[in-house]
């Protein structure tokens, strides 16, 4: 990559220019951001470097940070966002917290008041470092321009290694203007941060022994498998040992949906088989997942009959929620290399058939009614099914949070990894739309489809401006039931249908989209679905398809909060 450094007589550059050069050294290809007073110098340099650094202007800093997350999830690279001081920085907090709990690598650069004004309640001053301390993997406030290259190098290294996460670098205006001599050294190690564990040989042996002698083993894969780039190894391992696999919400698409050993999703709205059979397994092999409460239900009885193997790169997760018999602190890729070498094939036909039998039951009693409905009103499930069929399971599916999220997770099929992007741990409504924008910018050659509800879409609807200005070809499917669906479902099931503040009067979304130059259509009849989907995918332009779905549809199966995973309920 060629770039010209604006050299002063003594070969020094401003801190803002050092930032540009550092981002280029880190091979940054997309920056999502929003200007302001305390980043105006940075933006002046972005102007100068516009041919080398692609900056996408969001319409709200929250849109910028979620876009950086979607970009990171779709590409596996580190997302980058920039915001100004004060409210600009605080608007990033939701996204930073989301990235923290979902282990997404992003570097957030915030402007800050000049050093001399720090702590004086200056205009647009906010102590963002303190505010984001619990939700950043690392953060640092630069004081001199000369610190910028090292801070950026460390930021990227920390964000993407070990268990990935968000890093925040706060740059006071004085450091942006100040001069320094630019020299860049990528960060390759940090004395106090050893993220790459050495495999404990005795634990590996114990795990191999356990797998080879297990009668009813089950692999639970989580996002860690994707973060480690270990998808193919996971498949090879499962096939070699002949062990069925289930995925968490965050692990979806790591394994192709049609693989004979893939049994479905676990969790609150997961498939019946994997959930119920967790209570029948004799060996639970957890890989790159953290036993979130959405997965375990009542922890006191979760898999209590099973031997539990837990492999994760974050040592503090092993044994945190669920008692573990063999914990292996490892990068999943390293662990799988060893396991693949040593495991044996064991015939487990009867055990695998239990999953397929349960799926058949689920299909007949739940799934068929949802994806092939006979009543007049449309269901979310049939829309998701039609889209996944039309895209032949090749699309990147992005969701918002709520009922549509669960339906999209359950009924989308995946051929490729990194094809399902959702806010899992934090469950941020409004995440979907900007994340889809970031994803499309990261993988423009793929179809990117967003499923969102009428509630979540309106939380970040202003990003239609970003779509318009950059002609980002996202396909937005608004599954509109006129309610805050998931909360309404709980109010129906557990609060005697007292719909407190969950009914929403919505605008005409198609007209709103049109105002932003985005084509679209609204349907409420099954007869129009196929044609509408075809129209949506006819070209690579942004498109909004509103589908008016049955107002009081519920997501089943469901494990009510605190119930054991065997306590799945199928209907109202």
């Amino acid at each position, binding site marked *: 990559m060629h770039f010209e450094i604006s050299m002063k007589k003594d070969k020094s550059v401003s801190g803002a220019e050092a930032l540009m050069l550092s981002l280029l050294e880190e091979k940054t290809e997309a920056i999502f951001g929003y200007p302001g007073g305390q980043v105006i110098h940075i933006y002046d340099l972005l102007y100068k470097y516009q041919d080398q650094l692609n900056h996408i202007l969001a319409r709200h800093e929250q849109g910028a940070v979620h876009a950086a997350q979607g970009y990171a999830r779709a590409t596996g690279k580190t997302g980058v966002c920039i915001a100004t001081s004060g409210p600009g920085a605080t608007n990033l907090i939701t996204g930073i917290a989301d990235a923290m709990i979902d282990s997404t690598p992003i570097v957030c650069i915030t402007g800050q008041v000049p050093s001399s004004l720090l702590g004086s309640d200056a205009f647009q001053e906010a102590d963002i470092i303190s505010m984001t301390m619990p939700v950043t993997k690392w953060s640092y406030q630069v004081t001199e321009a000369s610190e910028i290259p090292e801070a950026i190098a460390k930021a990227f290294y920390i964000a993407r290694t070990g268990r990935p996460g968000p890093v925040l670098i706060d740059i006071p205006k004085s450091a942006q203007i100040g001069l320094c001599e630019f020299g860049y050294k990528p960060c390759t190690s940090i004395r106090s941060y050893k993220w790459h564990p050495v495999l404990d040989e005795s634990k590996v042996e114990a795990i191999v022994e356990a797998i080879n002698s297990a009668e009813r083993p089950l692999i639970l894969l989580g996002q860690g498998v994707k973060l480690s780039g270990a998808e193919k190894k996971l498949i090879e391992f499962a096939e070699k040992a002949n062990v069925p696999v289930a995925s968490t919400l965050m692990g979806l698409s790591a394994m192709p949906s049609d693989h004979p050993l893939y049994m479905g999703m676990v969790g609150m709205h997961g498939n019946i088989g994997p959930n119920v059979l967790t209570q029948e397994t004799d060996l639970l092999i957890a890989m790159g997942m953290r036993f979130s409460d959405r997965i375990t239900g009542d922890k006191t009885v979760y898999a209590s009959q099973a031997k539990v193997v837990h492999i994760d790169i974050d*040592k503090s997760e092993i044994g945190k929620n669920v008692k573990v018999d063999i*914990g292996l602190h490892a990068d999943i890729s390293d662990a799988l290399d060893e396991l693949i070498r040593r495991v044996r094939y064991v015939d487990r036909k009867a055990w695998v058939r239990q999953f397929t039998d349960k799926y058949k039951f689920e299909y007949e009693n739940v799934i068929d009614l949802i994806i092939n409905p006979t009543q007049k009103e449309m269901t979310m499930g049939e829309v998701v099914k039609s889209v996944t069929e039309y895209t032949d399971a090749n699309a990147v599916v992005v969701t918002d949070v709520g009922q549509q999220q669960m339906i999209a997770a359950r009924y989308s099929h995946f051929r490729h990894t990194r094809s399902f992007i959702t806010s899992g741990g934090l469950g941020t409504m409004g995440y979907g739309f900007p994340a889809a924008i970031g994803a499309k910018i990261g993988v423009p050659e793929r179809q990117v489809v967003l499923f969102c509800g009428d509630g979540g879409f309106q939380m970040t609807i202003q990003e239609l401006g970003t779509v318009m200005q950059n002609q980002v070809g996202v396909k937005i499917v608004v599954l509109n039931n006129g309610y805050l669906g998931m909360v309404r479902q709980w109010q129906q099931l557990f609060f005697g249908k007292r719909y407190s503040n969950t009914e929403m009067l919505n605008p005409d979304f198609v007209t709103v989209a049109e105002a932003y130059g985005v084509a679209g259509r609204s349907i409420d009849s099954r007869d129009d679905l196929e044609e509408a989907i075809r129209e949506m995918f006819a070209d690579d332009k942004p498109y909004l398809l509103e589908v008016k779905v049955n107002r009081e549809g519920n997501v089943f199966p469901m494990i009510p909060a605190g119930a054991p995973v065997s306590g799945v309920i199928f209907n109202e």
Partner: protein
Amino acid sequence: MEKNRAYIVSVFSENQAGVLNRITSVFLRRKINIESLKVSETSVKGISMFTIEASTSESVMPLLVCQIEKIIEVIRAEYCPADEQAELNIQRFLNSLGSVLNDPDPAVSVC
């Protein structure tokens, strides 16, 4: 409900602004009150040792220490009961700094 006991947590970390905040946040998150706190330099330049006294249940301690070790600037953390042996344990920890720094995988500890 598990009984609370007094523990002493010893931590080696890089001497950088903000680390103390991150360490105390781990205690705050679990509503554990810090009874005493000492920070002192060690024989290695740039590395400080924190000695923190707090009371909590036995099952929480290993997890707390693991979470302290997650902090980027933290090199190693250990805990021991606040009994007569505590002084010895703390001294032993302090003496181990050299070997901890030379350890290729200091991530092999409690949890």
